[in-house]
């Protein structure tokens, strides 16, 4: 909806929305000439690893958004000129992300041609590794999740901890308190330790 407003503004006086949209489409096609409309399908390839039974690596070169292969004509990015400028700025340092042996590595400023080389390298070893994949995938699927205790809400936990620390502190230095206060403290403590004792019998 905001996109519509944007387009209307870009179109200026009198020109219809349709004409503006056509213009944008033409411009988009021009910029992305060469039949490069590939679907944005993730590519993953597998290479044999040195130590692991099975390792997989997917080289994923981070793309600048304006080089996306999908036809995002609507609604958000095609019409926002300012947005595309911002995106250009952020695309100066393409990153390379590699999933390998269960870990993730990110390399900044990775040139695209090097990434291509790497992808070729990885693709070359694909066939030899393919056989190992099935066996390895099965082995990696041990049906057990690491123990994951129920998380505690920080605010309440912090409060309970603070009170616990205070109880410990008052217990460690009983003589520091004035006599009456000490009596009060200890009776209070006794009450808390034997919490509910009077009603236990009743209940």
């Amino acid at each position, binding site marked *: *909806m*905001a996109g519509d*407003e*944007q387009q209307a503004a870009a179109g200026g006086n009198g020109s219809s929305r349709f004409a503006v949209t056509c213009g944008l489409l033409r411009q988009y096609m021009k910029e992305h000439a060469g039949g490069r409309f590939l679907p*944005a*399908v*993730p*590519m*993953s390839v597998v290479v044999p690893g040195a130590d692991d039974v*099975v390792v*997989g*690596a997917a*080289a*994923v070169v*981070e793309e600048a*958004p304006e080089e996306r*292969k*999908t036809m995002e004509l609507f609604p*958000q*990015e095609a019409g926002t000129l300012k947005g595309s400028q911002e*995106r250009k700025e952020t695309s100066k340092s393409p990153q390379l*992300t590699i999933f390998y*042996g*269960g870990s*993730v590595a*990110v390399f900044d400023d990775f040139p695209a041609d090097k*990434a291509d080389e790497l992808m070729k390298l990885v693709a070359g070893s694909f066939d030899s590794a393919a056989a190992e994949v099935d066996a*390895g*995938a099965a082995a*990696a*699927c041990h*049906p057990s*999740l*690491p*123990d*994951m*205790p*129920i*998380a*505690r*809400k*920080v*605010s*309440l936990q912090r409060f*309970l901890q603070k*009170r*616990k620390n*205070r*109880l410990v*502190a008052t217990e460690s230095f009983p003589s520091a*308190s004035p006599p*009456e*206060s000490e009596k009060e*403290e200890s009776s*209070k403590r006794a*009450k*808390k330790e034997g*919490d*509910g004792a009077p009603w236990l019998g009743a*209940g």
Partner: protein
Amino acid sequence: MGGEAGDRRLGRVMSFGIPDVALGLVMGFVEDPWDRDAISLVCRHWCRVDALSRKHVTVGMAYSITPDRLLRRFPCLESLKLKAKPRAAMFNLIPDDWGGSASLWIRQLSASFDFLKALHLRRMIVSDDDVDVLVRAKAHMLASLKLDRCSGFSTSSLALLARTCKKLETLFLEDSSIADKENDEWLRELATNNSVIETLNFFLTDLRASPAYLTLLGRNCRRLKVLKISECFMPDLVDLFRTAEILQDFAGGSFDDPGQDAESRNYENYYFPPSLHRLSLLYMGTNEMPVLFPYGATLKKLDLQFAFLSTEDHCQLVQRCPNLETLEARDVIGDRGLQVVAQTCKKLQRLRVERGDDDQGGLEDEHGMVTQVGLMAVAQGCPHLEYWAVHVTDITNAALEAIGTFSKSLNDFRLVLLDREANITESPLDNGVCSLLRGCTKLQRFAFYVRPGALSDVGLGYVGEFSKKIRYMLLGNAGESDQGLLQLSTGCPMLQKLELRGCFFSERALAMAALQLKSLRYLWVQGYKASPNGTDLMAMVRPFWNIEFIAPKQDEPCPHGQAQVLAYYSLAGMRSDCPPSITRLHPSI
């Protein structure tokens, strides 16, 4: 329009023949954002009318849209709520350097949102500079500022706000992490410069507040209705309560101050203003509890999460509070306490039972356990419950069925099964969950955190089938295999936000579910069946989705350091402030 879920698809034919004047008048009465969304889709003109008349917007994920874009869509916004860090941050599960700075937003809001007078930031990082920028632009009109579970600023910002924002009616800082806590000069500034403040909340912040300044506040700020402070010895607050005559809601104080002598601990005839209906007192123990007895019948809200009472104390106190609409406690309240609640509190709308201090033997009442017994009693006794969050040590299908049968008003139900007991009475709970979801037709939020085996794939299928209106869902240790998740994802037509923890789903299944759930725009997962190389997550990648892989901390062997996946729909592109521990997944070449 607030009727059935499917009714919101309004046709263009709706717009024919309705004059602009009438449309404008009607729109003025439509506040529900979902209704407004539906209206804005009818035709271009209605969209424009909605855009110009929308006063408040909540952005559930600050990285999902740019301030620019929001302004273009809603140029007349008066109130904005923004949330950034995932909910898991409240449980210490998100790395400190995750991000969530409010700087960009505050700069743009200050520069271009001319009508903005209320800002609510939740789980964000707000620096002193940010507050300075905001104050420079908005001091003359800022009516409400909520820095809700935020961090990064100090009391000097509070002093600035107090000095300059004369129209500030609400200052909310609850559970925020604020630097320079000992300096309470800001409170004096507020008390002397602001006469319109109605809500001041710095509960759970540990900010110091001298009783003299609080009394000054009560005396000068005659509209003060809500005051939530940090620890402050109750006998020192007597003057405050005498002066703040129209106070309705108070939280904080303290009955526990080892530095004070015994004489000052006499709470007989302690005075609270007659208008006070909502209370949360820190460190209230058995001896101090009678202070509330004379006020029991007037109380609408009682928060006992920060009190130290036995199960019996809870029974005694609740018995005296027949008009409670909101009750919050730790699980020490026990089944017995909940039975008393069921008998006494017929008007109860919100009930929260938090997890107590279960690993420190002796401190909590051993009899404080909540099970199916307590749940069944409450379901039958409190028919008006709308919000119910509870931590239990045992649960049965019958109890869940009872909730489905009786709790017809529930729109938010959250259950966590604790791991205190090795075994629970009944498992799986598939049929109970099925009955609950079928019965509670108003449910919009649903959390079910159990243990492996307690909700099978069949149960997940039920969840998918009967969650017609649920927008938010949390599942913990649920399901047995990918099949369950896939089954779930064929249903849940309204599900926008899904959180999964400790569920045995593969990356591929997570990705397929993310693609299949048609309303989904936010997914957080911790603990899943990771593929050897993580590439299966790539199946989730698509335009307008930001997918972040949060690597476990290398130096922390603790289980909280498990890998997480956060995926959200975004019109703002990739965020640029990811720390090294976060990997953004992109479409590959």
